[in-house]
């Protein structure tokens, strides 16, 4: 099997098209995903700058922006429906088309074969197809800004009837249809990619790479993939049903008696709650699909920069399994006040708080991994440290929201916005950066600039807290999310001023990412040359040249003799022992 695979994939395609565009090589596909994700991140980041402008200076006139975006402004002032399109698309793009692309599909593609000792993915053609379905999904999603009525404006959760009835909101026209098509295609793409990850990790591990020798990045990707494969198809079904409600006259999500624009709609028999269940059946596991790989990466970055084994490897693996399993059955905690049965609500509340147990284990093990180490503050290490603090604060916020009784007050408030930005905004973004700074030398054979990297980290870290910590407090003050402005309410007037510093922090946070983009592209050409193992790390990807050749190893695939965290082994001359060193040969 290994030999046949060897012969097949070692034949490297020569044409530009087959090498860089329709490539079957997992490393090229990975970079395609990462670069696509970065491109969408720029768009989605610009959207959020508009959102923050509006919240900092409601009703201010922006004539220049009106000439650029004539559909979104009227008399120089942003339209409320445009604001809602901005928040909808910002959320959708960031969750599915940035973090899923870059962190799961991007890093997954690059790292899985290299870290388990395979020459490529199990199904290279499916892998290519996955990316080339993701591209039209992205384009369809982005195109929705340019259709009549503008992009979808019913929130990234697309709750019907707002998303089902075209006259409910301008974005519920063609924009919403494109949103649904884009999402369905995204899921098709993810399913192909996920299946591939799953089979690859299951079948293509090299000799000696037993389950308990897998780096945690691979474990976390494995679980994220399982979650995605089990949870995502629910939304494909829901999207088709919603499309039928919109265009086929069906009533899956629409009850009788709906009254819009002075007209009674002919629907009957459906319920909007069905969509909420189906959406969150995808939506909640999706959180773990995104966050688990970031946690895995954090562990794998911690070990080489503390020069010691991580704490509690086995317990972390079990905890990841527990988080994955429980993560599948707690979607209802997004629906405590939705009208769902309060008995179900209490079940979901108890289940959600159960997740804090394995999550706290993971956090505790990460914390304990610092203890006694020889800590070195490289940029990836700084970001990994950042992950732990964000995971701590974000996780603690989760206790508030998971407790159904507290959620009566906090539901759909800025507390929620603050919380999920810490988790699927912060932990994942920092995971992405930790991974990029750490594996960049492997990707491109050059080092990223450390000074720029550290400046990038510090500004990002401080500005991130500046943006999202205060949102928790606004939520405690009762401030609802998805509000275009806060001047209508007396009880919000004293809180509304906080949006100014939040916005200023957000602009700084956005601008800091330009440092990263510059560093990323500038170092690609001019960075210092990277050796094959610049961090003196132990895992398999560092045993091949940087960047790895087609087929990943110039010689035979490596054989594994030990777990991935063999640092500062007593009696060894070096303070790291690669996984490929046989027992008894540590001294070499």
């Amino acid at each position: 099997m290994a030999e046949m695979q060897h012969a097949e994939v070692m034949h490297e395609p020569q044409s530009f098209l087959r090498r860089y565009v329709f490539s079957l090589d997992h490393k090229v596909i990975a970079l395609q995903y990462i670069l696509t994700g970065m491109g969408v991140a720029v768009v989605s980041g610009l959207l959020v700058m508009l959102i923050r402008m509006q919240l900092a200076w409601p009703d201010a006139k922006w004539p220049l922006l009106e000439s650029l975006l004539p559909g979104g402004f009227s008399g120089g002032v942003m339209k409320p429906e445009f604001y809602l399109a901005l928040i909808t698309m910002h959320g959708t793009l960031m969750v599915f088309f940035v973090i899923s692309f870059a962190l799961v599909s991007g890093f997954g593609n690059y790292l899985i074969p290299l870290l388990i000792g395979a020459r490529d993915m199990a199904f290279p053609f499916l892998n290519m197809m996955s990316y080339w379905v993701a591209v039209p999904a992205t384009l369809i999603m982005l195109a929705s800004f340019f259709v009549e009525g503008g992009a979808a404006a019913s929130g990234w959760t697309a709750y019907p009837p707002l998303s089902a009835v075209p006259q409910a909101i301008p974005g519920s026209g063609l924009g919403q249809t494109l949103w649904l098509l884009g999402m369905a295609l995204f899921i098709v793409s993810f399913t192909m990619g996920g299946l591939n990850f799953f089979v690859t990790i299951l079948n293509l591990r090299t000799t000696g790479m037993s389950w308990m020798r897998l780096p945690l990045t691979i474990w976390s990707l494995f679980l994220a993939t399982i979650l995605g494969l089990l949870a995502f198809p629910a939304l494909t079904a829901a999207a088709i049903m919603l499309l039928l409600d919109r265009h086929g006259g069906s009533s899956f999500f629409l009850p009788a008696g709906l009254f819009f624009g002075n007209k009674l709609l002919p629907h009957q028999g459906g319920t909007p709650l069905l969509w909420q269940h189906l959406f969150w059946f995808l939506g909640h596991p999706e959180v773990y699909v995104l966050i688990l790989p970031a946690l895995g990466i954090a562990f794998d970055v911690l070990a080489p920069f503390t020069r010691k084994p991580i704490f509690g490897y086995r317990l972390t693996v079990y905890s990841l399994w527990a988080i994955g399993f429980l993560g599948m059955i707690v979607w209802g905690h997004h629906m405590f006040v939705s009208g769902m049965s309060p008995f179900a609500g209490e079940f979901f509340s108890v289940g959600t708080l159960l997740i804090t147990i394995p999550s706290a284990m993971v956090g505790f093990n990460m914390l304990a991994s610092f203890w006694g180490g020889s800590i070195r503050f490289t940029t990836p290490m700084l970001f990994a440290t950042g992950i732990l603090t964000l995971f701590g604060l974000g996780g603690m916020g989760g206790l508030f929201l998971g407790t159904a009784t507290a959620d009566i007050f906090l539901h759909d408030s800025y507390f929620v916005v603050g919380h999920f930005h810490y988790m699927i905004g912060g932990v994942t973004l920092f995971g992405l950066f930790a991974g990029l700074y750490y594996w960049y030398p492997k990707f491109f054979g050059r080092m990223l600039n450390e000074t720029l990297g550290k400046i990038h980290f510090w500004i990002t870290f401080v500005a991130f807290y500046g943006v999202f910590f205060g949102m928790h407090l606004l939520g405690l003050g009762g401030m609802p999310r998805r509000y275009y402005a806060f001047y209508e309410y007396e009880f919000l007037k004293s809180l509304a001023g906080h949006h100014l510093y939040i916005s200023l922090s957000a602009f700084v946070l956005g601008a800091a990412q330009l440092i990263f983009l510059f560093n990323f592209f500038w170092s690609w050409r001019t960075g210092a040359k990277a050796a094959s193992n610049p961090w003196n790390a132990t895992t398999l990807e560092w045993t091949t040249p940087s960047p790895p050749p087609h087929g990943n190893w110039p010689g035979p695939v490596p054989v594994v003799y030990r777990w991935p965290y063999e640092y500062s082994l007593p009696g060894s001359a070096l303070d790291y022992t690669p996984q490929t060193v046989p027992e008894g040969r540590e001294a070499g």
Partner: protein
Amino acid sequence: MSETSGRWEGRLVAVVIWLIPMVVVVCGAQRWLPPLASEHGAGIDQVLIYLLVTVGGLLVLGHLALGYSLWRFSGQPRVTHRLASPRQERKWALIPNLLMTILGEGGVLVLGLPVWAKFYAASPPDDAVPVEITGEQFAWNVHYPGQDGVFGRTVATLISLNNALGLDPDDPGARDDVVLVNELFLPVNRPARVRLRSKDTLHSFFLPYQRVKQDAVPGMTIELWFVPTETGSYEIACTELCGFGHYQMRGLLQVLSEPEFESRMRELPPFR
């Protein structure tokens, strides 16, 4: 990287890590919650304060420990502890396990469940004031049953500009009903029994001071009850995205003394 520079950098990170919980505690200790004006709200506030204190404490401990590790071990040339034995790991694992079980599930089941059960599962007392609230883009229709205590029949086909709920004029129960827009009157210290409905999209009925929040779902009638404990006028907000006017869907709740409430009810014009 030289060892000294690593040490100083580590200490800088440690100090920043220590600053985080200080800022969190100083900010979190301020009063953010709107003043309380309902009975069950005291239970919700209790859960929130319990979480703020316990979770805040954990956050402080965690950051102190992380900062201490960074301060002590950054830049040190040699690893001082290598690998905990599986036994040690399991022993240490008891800390997060027990803490979260007691703290998290304790909060949900001991403090939270009784409040949750009262808000949702307990049936309202007999002297409760019934009122039906129907959300629409972008207003709250408030519907009292009138002197007879019976809500008139509503039929969607009868909805028109001057009959926003589609009340059936032929139904005797409907004649003395009172329908208001964006104005809700309730007596103080008497339970209010709310039937929540929606005509179009989802809405969410939010009374910040009374700690009430419940989605209004088209096709469903959702019941809840609460007891306002302070007189005064309070705002009603919508907290489920319902369209471009979502941020303007403001109503006013007036909590009146019992006699004032009774006379106000008599003054309001009946439906027909």
